[in-house]
């Protein structure tokens, strides 16, 4: 259990979230719940990303009082995944907003949130 570091815990959490998200995507019949599944999946990925950028016992990559300006390379965590996750979050937000909008529109047209009711197009 000595391996069980912070980053590994978060990583596993992320993976589990991803799996739960997929489970939700694949099993839930309600459109809103499917979207929620997606956000879980997305969030899981973000957590994974952040975990990967973590370096043991270091602080956020912002040069302030807690960081030695001359030894930044050894005192901050990797800024790149953080930058990436920022982008990813925004993208996820956009996608989620879109999904919800579509769901709203579909609901307005057919008054149903059941995904099985939207299979007119097939084969």
């Amino acid at each position: 259990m000595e391996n069980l570091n912070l980053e590994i815990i978060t990583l596993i959490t992320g993976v589990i979230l991803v799996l739960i998200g997929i489970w939700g995507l694949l099993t839930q019949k309600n459109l809103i719940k499917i979207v929620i599944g997606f956000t879980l999946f997305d969030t899981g990925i973000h957590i994974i990303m952040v975990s990967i950028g973590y370096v043991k016992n270091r602080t956020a990559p912002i040069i302030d009082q807690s960081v030695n300006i001359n030894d930044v390379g050894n005192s901050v965590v990797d800024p790149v995944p953080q930058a990436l996750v920022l982008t990813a979050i925004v993208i996820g937000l956009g996608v989620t907003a879109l999904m919800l909008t579509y769901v709203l529109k579909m609901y307005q047209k057919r008054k149903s949130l059941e995904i099985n009711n939207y299979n007119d197009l097939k084969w």
Partner: protein
Amino acid sequence: MVGPIYIIAIALGTAFSLGFFKKANSNFSFAFMLFAMAFMTFISGQWLYAFLTQQQETIQIFTAGFKPPFSISLQMGLHESVFLSLINIIGLLAAIYLYDQLKEKGVQMMMIFVLLFMGLNVVIMTRDIFNLFVFLEIASIATAGLIILDKSINATSAGFKYIIATGIISGILLIGIIAIYYFAGSLFINDIIKLNLIYVKGGAVAVFLVLIAIILELKPFPANGWALDVYEAAHPGIGAVISAASASAGIFVLAKILPIVGDSGYYIIGLIGIITFLGSNLLGLKQDRANRLLGYSSIGQIGLLLTIIGLTPYLGDKTLFIAFGVLISHALAKAGLFWLAGIVNSEYIKGWAAIRRKPLLLVLMGTFIFALVGFPPFPSFFAKWELIMQLANNDKIIWLALILIGSFIEGIYLFRWFGYAIKEKNEDLPEFPIKLNKVIPVSIVAAGLYLIGYYTGLAIPEAAIINYIPLIFIVIIFALDFLPAYVKNSISILGLAYYSYTIIPAYFENDMLRFIFVVIFLIGGILTFIAGYAYKGKRRGFYPVALIMYVGLVQIIQAENLLQFFFGWELMTAGSYFLIIRGKKSMAHALSYMLFSMGGAYLILAGFALAQQGQMSLSLDVLNSISNNAFIIISLLMIGFLTKTATLGLHIWLPGAHGEAESDVSPMVSAILLKAGVFGLIILLISTIKNIETVSIVYILGWLGAITALIGNLGAAFQEDAKRLLAYSSIGQLGYIVFGLAMMTHLGWLTAFTYTINHFMYKAILFLTIGAVVLRVGTHNMYEMGGLIKKMPFAFIAVLIGIIALSGVPPLSGFTGKWLLYNAVILKGWYFQGAIAFFAGIIAFLYLFKLISSIFLGQLKDNHRNVKEISIWFIIPIYILIIGLMIFAAKPELILQPMGDIVAQYFPDGGLNWDGGLATTPIGNWHGTHIMIIVGVMFMLLLTWLVVLSRKAQKVKQFNIVYSGERPFTPETTHISYNIFAGYNKALGFLVMPWITNFWNFMSDIIHDTAGFVRRIYSGNGQTYLAHIIIYIVVVYFVFFN
């Protein structure tokens, strides 16, 4: 030059500024957007031009003033510029096409549209893997926005499915990217490539995730239900963009990240590609909705591209050329088809019949369909050729076979669709408006296809010698399509005459074999064109397609290498397809013709590919030195050619195709076209004469030929449709030719040549005459005719001479063939085959009698009492042919002697000895001229005698016959014609039960049922599609990585 970064700036600037115009004049916003698109196109175009002409070096664009890997960099090279230009041009045209929609829906859609193309542009240029992800997302989100252009429930739900599927896929991509970052410590693709992550534990998985996500973006079968729904629900203008532009970008991305995966990726991609190609096309078979069909086809084409990328290790430096050819054909043709779908606006493919109200659109559609299937002169033709050749060179036979099968299946539904467009009933279909802004983009892409096709052709040395001038002539004829038929007819005749003048003399000097065929093709072409004067009106589209066929035929003759031969072959197939489908009820028959031709062509292609394997040459001589797999190669080529000669088993297309064709088309496709197959066989057999495998093959071929002759003739005997009867007769006659060739002796070949010439003449005579009669009486059914001898004596004489010649009764030329045949058979020792052929020959009397008596003898029908003699324009060519026939009959040595010399080059032994007009073989002798004189003199003497004896005979009318003390009632009940060989049918009819038709129908049913069953996986439920994606990932992972 304007830097590529300005593409981004312009697009974004435009998109952001469009917000200002929300309430302003929408025309202005549209113009603004169009300008942006045009500018983007201009930037990419100028780079392309620079790369092509000015040896421009590939450049890197660094952003933020730092070098990679620290900042994001873009790359602009030749490949990028090609893809950018393609995508941007499609975008520009799509914008023009979507003018009404974009204007109506407002600036948001314009923003989305511009941003989609901006996204695609950056996706292509970027060298940063995360940046790739971001712009892929932009593209997908923009696509999702465009899908809901019309806000319908289907579009919205398709959009939802799309967005959730791409959401999952990009999630996977993101995991992969972050893991790659973890393992590689960089996001710069060039750095990542150097690290060979695939060998790092975990790194391989990361790479796999990226790869599979990109592949999933390309919609592999079967994890692509969401994409199909999108294609179906989205506006066709958007479908075009997705199919042409987005997919192209996706392919480029795949190519970009492939080096990360390393060589092991090729195999996966190839396999995924081929599964997609086959699966998607298979399911397309059952599809009857146009947009969705296009979707299947798009995915299939992308599958083919994936396969090509996957086969890179074997294709070597040809990969780019092949992929480019396939991609450009796919992109332009698919965009064009989608746009056409928007114009025609018909949900079901049968509704496309409406398109032929606008001939231009029909021509465009034909262009796209043929480009997709890979006919010349489109880029895909050359690409496919190179692909197959390279695969064969690398011994990838199974890949080769699968690719051809997939292409074939694709051809099935595309041509069925095209057939609907040309022939399905369109009376009750709604009108559709034509807008200039919609037609122009379609026309531009079509023109682009031809142009690029021409230049791709130039890129292959073997294709560069193809003579394009005749094709230009055809284009001119096509441009003159508005002229009345007789003008075009004259031009066509002049054209063919000039063509003959330029090429025939040389062949006469040097190559009698080709001389014979070129004379059949060109002189036959001129003669059949003369009959065209009988047609009034404009005969739209007839002349270009007929000329295409003739040019194809001549190209086959002129071919010096395999590619040229195949080029001509495909050209001829295309032209004849159009000719055949012109018939009133020809839809199904033309399809079946096309399928058999296409199947045959692919077999030939495969055969050629295998034949040239390891010989480093494409010259026709490679056939001489086939060493490996000779049996398979020769069989493939042979079956390919036999589809054209309609040999048993492959003949079911012929009766309908020839029977339902127009009156002057039937002789073209029967008397002339079928000889192409014969020529192919001759070329093949000449080349493989020394090959040990040929012996066993020709033995089978001999039996096939004999049985074909029997079944063809027997089938003809039971026909009620005059033209079908002649068509079956052609099957039989071609059976003789094949039989003669299969003997592989001097006399056997001479027989085949004689039959070839004879069949050309008498079948042209018969088809022309019967066709002309049909034009007059308005029916094909013989039992509805009768007694026409009094109305059409010239036609009767022509048919009489034709059937005497065909039946082989001395003294006309048919006997020449028969005599040679039996001498050959006995000398060869093929007694049973010979007996079957003889039996077939006698059965010919049954149908020939039926043909002439049912039509010309017996009782004249009520409604034919006023019909006139057949048109003079038919009589002229018919009687020219009759003169030829008579000369050949009276002086057979004129042709047989030089032919003997040709054949002697290959079979020196056992030829004919000529002593003046007396031909002798080791066992028989025959003097054609003297027999003609003897029979003629005797006949004239006896005729005179009888005429003197019965000079006073009273001429009576048709009901003045012995009728057992009664009198006849109506001509119909007195004319015995329907099913007159019923007794014969009872005894031998089992031989002509449609076993073979049933077999092919059964095959077709199986394939269609499979397609119908498999496509149920596309349940329409978005969740199922998600499950497919996840399952796909897991399955691919476990198959390839464990």
